[in-house]
């Protein structure tokens, strides 16, 4: 088992190297120029920047050479810094990338974690009832509702909820993370966070239930039609035990695998939802960095997600070995 994990971790290092190289080249080829934007801003202020200064700035930021070899050199410089556990300094924020990620991750993580917990708690029972009452009114109602949820774009639905719950009914604040006019502490601060995060979490939950519910329903249906469920019924078990013990335990197997995709999404931030509700989450920061060509931050952020993805897949495989006795990890 330990050997298996070590082997997988070593392979992961190779994967991450490949990923970092691809991302770096893609970013360098992106038609965004942080320096040019900066100079334009200075120019607009009335001052003029000399050719020489511009050249020096490009060289300072390590963006002077756009040839293949130049980009390669830039990549290895970045990689060398990474080997010393240095993700570099963000162009935009002029702060270490790692500290920016850490300081913005909390909000995104809180939203994603709470939303994911609710998503599972709602979607799995819905999927199970829909499957056990296949083609009944209950099945159709649940399916139609979650399908509406899947189909709504988050920027639209988020704004609808904001308009309804915040503007019309005035139940929750419309945006931001804390009430800037009040200075809460302790429990009150927590309550304030809750009030501000309620609508964003609600949006994310409603939009994500659909996929999970459909997945549960499909798996459950497949399991319910299998021979061993018939055996369980023939034993004289009540339908409740058949569903909750024999069927659910088997439905769990693919649900656990889907946890793999979940680990990175817990930290990546909901980019659009954070925009709509103006939350200082990491998704918001990442989008901004992307628009302004903040190469160190984009690299750091993407590598962070790549690392989580690789770990998530490993974790899912390990979980597979736990929930499915047929899987042996060697």
């Amino acid at each position, binding site marked *: 088992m330990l050997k298996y994990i070590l082997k997988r971790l070593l392979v992961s290092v190779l994967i991450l190297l490949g990923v970092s190289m691809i991302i770096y080249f893609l970013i360098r080829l992106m038609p965004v120029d942080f320096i040019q934007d900066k100079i334009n801003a200075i120019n607009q202020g009335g001052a003029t920047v000399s050719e020489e200064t511009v050249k020096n700035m490009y060289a300072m930021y390590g963006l002077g050479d756009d040839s293949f070899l130049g980009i390669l050199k830039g990549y290895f410089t970045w990689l060398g810094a990474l080997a010393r556990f240095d993700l570099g300094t963000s162009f935009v924020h002029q702060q270490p990338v790692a500290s920016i990620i850490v300081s913005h991750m909390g909000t995104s993580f809180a939203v994603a974690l709470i939303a994911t917990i609710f998503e599972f708690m709602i979607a799995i029972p819905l999927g199970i009832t829909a499957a056990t009452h296949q*083609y009944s009114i209950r099945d159709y109602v649940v399916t139609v509702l979650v399908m509406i949820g899947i189909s709504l774009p988050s920027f639209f639905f988020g704004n609808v909820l904001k308009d309804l719950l915040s503007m019309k009914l005035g139940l929750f604040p419309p945006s931001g993370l804390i009430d800037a006019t009040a200075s809460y502490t302790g429990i009150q601060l927590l309550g304030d966070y809750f009030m501000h995060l309620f609508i964003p979490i609600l949006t994310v939950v409603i939009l994500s239930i659909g996929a999970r519910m459909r997945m549960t329903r499909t798996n459950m249906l497949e399991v319910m*039609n*299998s*021979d*061993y469920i*018939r*055996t*369980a*019924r*023939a*034993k*004289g*078990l*009540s*339908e409740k035990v058949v569903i909750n013990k*024999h069927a659910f*335990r*088997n439905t769990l*197997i693919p649900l656990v695998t889907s946890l793999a995709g979940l680990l990175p999404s817990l930290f990546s931030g909901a980019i659009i939802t954070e925009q709509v509700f103006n939350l200082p989450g990491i998704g918001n920061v990442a989008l901004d960095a992307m628009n302004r060509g903040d190469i160190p931050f984009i690299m750091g952020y993407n590598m962070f997600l790549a690392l989580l993805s690789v770990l998530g897949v490993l974790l899912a495989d390990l979980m597979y070995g736990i*929930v*499915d*006795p*047929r899987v042996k990890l060697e």
Partner: protein
Amino acid sequence: MAKNPNYLSGKEIRAIAKENAKVMKRLEAYKHRKCDESEYLTEMKDKSNILEIENLNTYFFTEQGVVKAVNGVSLNIPKNATVGIVGESGCGKSVTSMSVMRLIQGPTGQIYSGEIRFNATEKADDDRVVEKVYDIAKMPMRDIHKIRGNQIAMIFQEPMTSLNPVFTIGQQLDEVTFINKKGATKEEAKEKSMEMLNLVGIAAPDRVYAAFPHELSGGMRQRVMIAMALAADPRLIIADESTTALDVTIQAQILDLLRDLKDKIDGSIMLITHDLGIIAEMADYVIVMYAGKVIEQGTAKEIFHNPMHPYTIGLQKSKPTLKSDSDMLFNIPGNVPNPVNMPDHCYFKERCDMCLKKCSGDYPGMVKVSPTHYVACHLYEEDQK
């Protein structure tokens, strides 16, 4: 252009769906109703029978129309007897047995009408054993646990997939004891499970008890299935093609096992198969089914030495023998008729080489040949002789 009978217009499909939905809804509601026990208590016609099926109709409401998988089947299973049911694939053997267990998958599959009378024994509060006759077809699903497992047990045809892959054999076997014995402890359940594993001839019960299904071979799994079926001391065992998936040596072992066990538990066996050899070896009575109907029934001797229905005769002929010199196996020409929209005349008419004029008329009734031998064929009706 001639109308293709397999083609349905959108209008026809919608009409069928509407009609089906109405019937299925009514039958589903009936299945899940709350009712008093007295509503499904009944009396046996013949006290020496353990199971009496009378005019059972089990239908599947498909998009193409109603498939009458079991179409007016009547049969009896006497106490302490082995009754074999033979017939080709799709003739309704399995559906009949599933109807007895009420395992027909709803809402499309439903018992439409008929009676399934079963003589159950129950322990009364003062530990006396009382006999009760249930009409299984009328039982609501919430009461079905009264017969499943503890009175009638079923051994299925797919040992490879019939065990839950995520639980150990022990967990699945213990469960049976937990259901049937109120307040059984873990040790008691394990003891019973080990006893059952020994009974079905498993050499290393300790190892098998702790194993997961995927760690066992097909024959071992089938033994486990049998152990599971017998753990609750049922009065009737339904073996639905339980040896079809196994190789011949294992098959012989399993059949020996079943025969021994039948005497040990003093019960009856309903043996469903399309293998005539197994029937000849095991069964006291044989019931031959064709296209959802019983076409001939009698003692094993009568069916094997004096088959009367042209279909039974054909079945006997198509059995491969070592004695014959022929390179070709005999087969009955033609196919089973389309299960939707069955004709009014004898279903075997198109494939029969002994047809009479009368065969285009009504479906033949059961003709009594001997006190135990019945055949549904116009050839043997009184006025024919």
